[in-house]
């Protein structure tokens, strides 16, 4: 971009203006995109919830749970639920701290949330490897076997996102979360990070609700 120096100052203003325009659009896109992502996820998990209720209500051949029915291990279920919920809550609390300007507090919270979420993925894999029923032994066992791998992948993807956010936060100076940074570049970087973090928080909280919802379906109902 050697041309830059030869541009008249007017063109530099225009470039800054357009950069600002698309910066603003990108912030909004993160906001809109996270909402649509939740919509798509809701329909995806809606399909599984539909399968659950449909098979349950039909109870084909009396085998919604079947004669030799074994419940999935409650211990695993509760552990996973707690891990995911606590991860979401800790991360949400961290978000409130970084909004107040405390970058370090969020970083700590995010690391904890990352650890807990990853632990949930690991525990879920352990449970799927030691299910007390055959996948096809009943309608219930089928839907259970369907749903948790998808949840697991969603958790893993969310944790990947959180890890990226943690890495993105590192070069940002802590002071720039408290007051307007000196340059546009830094201000934009901080705002982009914040919008991405907000989008992540929304999606991760939504995933926590989905986890709770399926916990109620599979372990409580």
């Amino acid at each position, binding site marked *: 971009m050697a041309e830059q120096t030869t541009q008249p100052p007017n063109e530099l203003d225009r470039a800054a*203006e357009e950069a600002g325009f698309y910066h603003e659009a990108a912030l909004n*896109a993160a906001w809109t995109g996270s909402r*649509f992502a939740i919509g798509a996820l809701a329909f995806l998990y809606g*399909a599984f919830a*539909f399968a659950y209720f449909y098979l349950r209500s039909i109870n084909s*051949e009396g085998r919604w749970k079947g004669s030799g029915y074994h419940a999935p291990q409650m211990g695993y279920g509760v552990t996973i639920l707690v891990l995911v919920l606590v991860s979401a809550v800790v991360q949400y609390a961290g978000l409130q701290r970084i909004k107040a300007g405390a970058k370090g507090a969020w970083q700590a919270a995010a690391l904890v949330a990352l650890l807990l979420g990853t632990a949930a993925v690991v525990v879920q894999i352990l449970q799927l490897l030691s299910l007390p029923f055959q996948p096809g032994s*009943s309608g219930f066992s089928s839907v259970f076997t369907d749903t948790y791998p998808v949840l697991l992948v969603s958790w893993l993807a969310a944790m990947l996102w959180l890890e990226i956010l943690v890495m993105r936060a590192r070069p940002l100076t802590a002071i720039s979360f408290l007051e307007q940074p000196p340059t546009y570049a830094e201000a934009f970087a901080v705002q982009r990070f914040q919008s991405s973090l907000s989008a992540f928080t929304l999606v991760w909280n939504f995933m926590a609700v989905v986890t709770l919802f399926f916990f109620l379906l599979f372990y409580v109902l």
Partner: protein
Amino acid sequence: MSIDIEPEKAQEPAGSGPIGPRLARPWWMRPAMHTGIIGAILGYFIGHWLGNFLSWEYARNALSDMNDFPLVLGYVIAVVGWLAGLGVFNDLGRQILGKPVPAAEEEEEAFGGVARYFRFSLDHKVVGIQYLVGMIIYFCTAGLFAMAIRTELLSPSYHIMSSSAYLMVVGEHGTMMMMLMSSVVLGPFGNYLMPLMIGSKRMAFPRLEALSFWLTPAAFIILLSSVLIGGFPTGWTGYAPLSVQAMEGMDAYAVAFGLMGISICLAGFNIIVTVINYRAPGMRWSRLPMFVWSMVTVSFLMVLATPVLIGGMYLLILDRTVQTANFVNTLGGSSYLYENLFWFFGHPEVYILALPGFGIVSEIIPVFCRKPLFGYRVAGAGMIGVALLSFFVWQHHLFVSGINPEMRPLFMLTTELISIPTGFIYLVAMGTFWKAKLRLTVPMLFALALYFNFLIGGISGVFLSDVPADTTEHGSFFVMAHFHYTIMGGLIFAFFGACYYWLPKMMGIKLNQKLGYLHFWTMFIFFNSTFLPLFAVGMAGQPRRVFEYATNLTPLNDWVSISSFLLGASILIFVINFIWSTVIVREREVANPWNSRGLEWQVAAPPPPGNFEHIPVVLSGPYDYGVKDAPAVADLHPPVGVVSASYASAGTASTGVEA
């Protein structure tokens, strides 16, 4: 050439950016299609081995001594390898490692020439052309399968194919067509033109957009690979338990359709977020071109409906691999579950196929009538109405299935209600034609043909929505004729109209008009000659997907078969025209040959990199033909300060930190 001073980049240490070293590499070291293919092959073998390793104790198919697990895992990891080879995960990896990621525009500047069409390009114009060529190839492939079907149906009892080969051909044709039709307009024209139409230089999620394209070759090759392992016997609907019972070819169907679901979900996601957030200043919702409205409504359906398809295909794969019993009635599952899931996606899908066609013709007719679009709001409301209602009609595919019989009047009502917003599209066209100055150019003829064909398709749809009439028509060739009239007669005619209308803009070259007229007339005549008799064939009692039929239907079937071959020849005229005009002759086209007011026509042909020199400020609607002293559609060189004023006022609501 727009100067891009993305301030974030200033932080990167000079010289160590990811672009530098990659440019230095020879072409065969850079990620592109060939590395993708290597990745796919490696991935398949890894997946196959892993699948065998994990599932060695599972039951095996008696005939092939294999179970489905290694095959599915092979497909999935092949796709991962394909994407990795294309370099899709490079930026993701950089982000995970905390390294700086180059902006989309910067990556694009590093590559030029024809080679960029073979790599994971983040330029929406490159993706549009990739989609265009890809979709034409898929369409021709699936069309050849259609001709194979008609060849078999030349005789009611003499067979040139085995029954399983016939079903394989039917399934490949149907599934491939359905897969490509979802993206046939949104992929090429949506991705290419939508940013131009809304006055944007960028897409919201260029990586997702590019990924959505590069999933399609994987999906199509996987679907085609089914031919090598015996095909699948279920047609495009894949009804369980037949699809649970079927041989390995079925896995290809489920993986391919699921992948395509991911692809169209991502494509729609990118489009809708872009339209919402990246419109140029002054591009109000009431000034949005109708084509963009159709893309918005289609994207809405894609984002919300395709996850259900992905879920359905996933359940099917699990039934076939880890032997869950989702669709097996005797083990607590239900075949109705599959039908419900499939059609809950399947009916919005039908409107995913219809709405882009409406958008294209609404874009074409004002230009060649030289009149404003009549009832702009009605047209928009029609599309939104169709999109919303389409979620509430899916059980009309299941009127005779025995599912929820008492609900049938309700679904009959919702289905028939859809014809009201669909009728808006006709009202808009008829109002626009009133006292117009019609120019019967090739795109206009294709648009007119859509109104002709879709009328037949739509009205026959009312017959199908009516339960008593549907009892005879369901599952017969009547249905087949109906949806070919709406999809081919509607969407594909609109697609070709869009090709003749917008390719001069997209490629900057003229398409041969004589061949265009020849293409249109042959296609119009032979299309109707192919599918109109099929209504009669269906009414006379010929079910779909049969290879043996009543002898007295032979003349009609032969007529249809011969027409369909001629229809295929007509498509060949287009392919010849396309190659002839764009590769061999390459006659330059002016920027705005149709004298259109559309924003996309106000830039050079083909549009420069970055679309616009400056962010334009939209001043008036796109259809103000004949309006005295109508302002120009946009100020392409607005003074500095106008653009920043547009977002400074609205900026507070959008910092995005309020979750």
